[in-house]
């Protein structure tokens, strides 16, 4: 078996590595959060706490998997499956290295955005079917937040698409040989970063699951492995957003030849994962109306202006 795009080895490798990375992120995040709060974090299980994830996994697998009697059983059960599926599907179009990937799609960027939109169904169904006021509030917030932040998440990417002249992620990466798109598309990068945080509802934009206000938001009623799937899907979403930023703005696998391309990709992606964790440690959560007005009144016009200016510059360069 050879390692090429679409081979079974490649698919299996991507699925395995992504899921294991997401699980390991639980430990990594707890350790890093600890360091940034002048604590040590979990360091007693295994070498420097590396087996903490195993302990967490055993705990979550052996917990009672309980469906509340008042919940709508069908949608309650499929909701965590949806988010897991769509987020893992998004990885199909991510180009990890020249020879690692699942499909070489001409609509890669659109596919990722479409999958992110489908993810909204999961949190909405999960919250609505729970028949719980906190879950309902959480899913209402999640729906509004994801729908509105998706708008300029897409628009902020159009600058990159215009520069590369393609929706194909591999071509986007290859067109960055002369220079990463972070320089011409800095505004687009910042907007995409913020929208990405909101899209994967991580802190500081974790308003759909804000513990202090509405328990755990849309997954208040979930337990056991169903909760675990929401939990792991959040971390996979984090990996996805970091990979997307790497691919679209930081030249994907490109880098000096002293390391293999896949390692360059991993290093860049991990830097962004660490940055997201740093954001969680440092930045407080905005109020809900602040989040919405910030999105619609500031980021949306900014991303439109960015797209307009990019288009003008591209046309005048021709």
């Amino acid at each position, binding site marked *: 078996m050879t390692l090429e795009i679409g081979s079974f080895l490649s698919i299996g490798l991507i699925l395995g590595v992504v899921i294991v990375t997401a699980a390991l992120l639980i430990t990594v995040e707890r350790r890093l959060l600890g360091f*940034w709060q*002048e604590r040590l974090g979990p360091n007693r299980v295994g070498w420097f706490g590396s087996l903490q994830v195993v302990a967490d996994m055993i705990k979550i697998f052996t917990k009672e998997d309980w469906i509340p009697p008042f919940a709508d059983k069908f949608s309650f059960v499929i909701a965590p499956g949806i988010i897991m599926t769509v987020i893992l599907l998004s990885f199909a179009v991510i180009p990890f290295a020249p020879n690692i990937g699942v499909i070489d799609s001409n609509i890669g960027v659109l596919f990722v955005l479409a999958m992110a939109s489908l993810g909204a169904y999961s949190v909405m169904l999960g919250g609505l079917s729970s028949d719980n006021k906190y879950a309902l509030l959480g899913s209402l917030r999640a729906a509004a937040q994801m729908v509105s932040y998706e708008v300029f998440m897409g628009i902020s990417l159009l600058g990159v698409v215009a520069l590369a002249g393609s929706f194909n992620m591999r071509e986007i990466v290859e067109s960055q040989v002369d220079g990463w798109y972070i320089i011409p598309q800095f505004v687009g990068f910042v907007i995409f970063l913020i929208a990405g945080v909101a899209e994967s509802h991580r802190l500081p934009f974790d308003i759909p699951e804000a513990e202090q206000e509405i328990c755990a938001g849309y997954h208040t009623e979930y337990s056991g492995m169903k909760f675990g799937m929401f939990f792991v899907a959040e971390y996979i979403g984090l990996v996805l957003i970091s990979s997307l930023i790497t691919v679209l703005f930081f030249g994907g696998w490109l880098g000096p030849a002293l390391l293999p391309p896949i390692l360059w990709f991993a290093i860049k992606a991990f830097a962004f994962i660490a940055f997201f964790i*740093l*954001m969680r440690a*440092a*930045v407080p959560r905005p109020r809900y109306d602040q989040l919405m007005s910030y999105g619609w009144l500031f980021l949306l016009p900014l991303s439109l202006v960015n797209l307009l200016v990019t288009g003008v510059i591209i046309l005048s360069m021709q």
Partner: protein
Amino acid sequence: MIRLIADTLLSQVRTLWLVFLKLFKKKDTVEYPDQQPYMFPRWRGRIILSRDPDGEERCVACNLCAVACPVDCIALQKGEMEDGRWYPEFFRINFSRCIMCGFCEEACPTNAIQLTPDFEMAEYIRQDMVWEKEDLLINGTGKYHDYNFYRVAGKQIEGKDKGEALNEAPPVDVRSLLP
């Protein structure tokens, strides 16, 4: 407006940078079982019953500690020796109730009951949290080394009459004051 936006963004970036720098700071965590924390001498931990310098029990079973205790975790019964001293027949502290507030120590007139800096008292069986007098008594004077209640108190016991205690004036013969 632009000023406000710029200030807000700069403030966020500064926050992120300052929090990032904490990665290199010394951590506040004390890794407890491996590394013992410094326990202050007046820490309110495990309760003991001390003895006076002669080796006798200090407790005179006055019940003030049991009265002062806000959670009623102290139980004791007064007994009397032949020489007139009072002592507790039993003295029982239920440490599963005790909140280590130290009120008993403050109430004690004879410095018998004292709190120590030890806090490692976890047990697997709840009944083991109830400590009897022989568990509580120590072979020492605790924090007050020279104090002996019966030597300074006016209480009459065998071998020490009224007025013979330290710093105590002899009893006044009221009849001699008559004209």
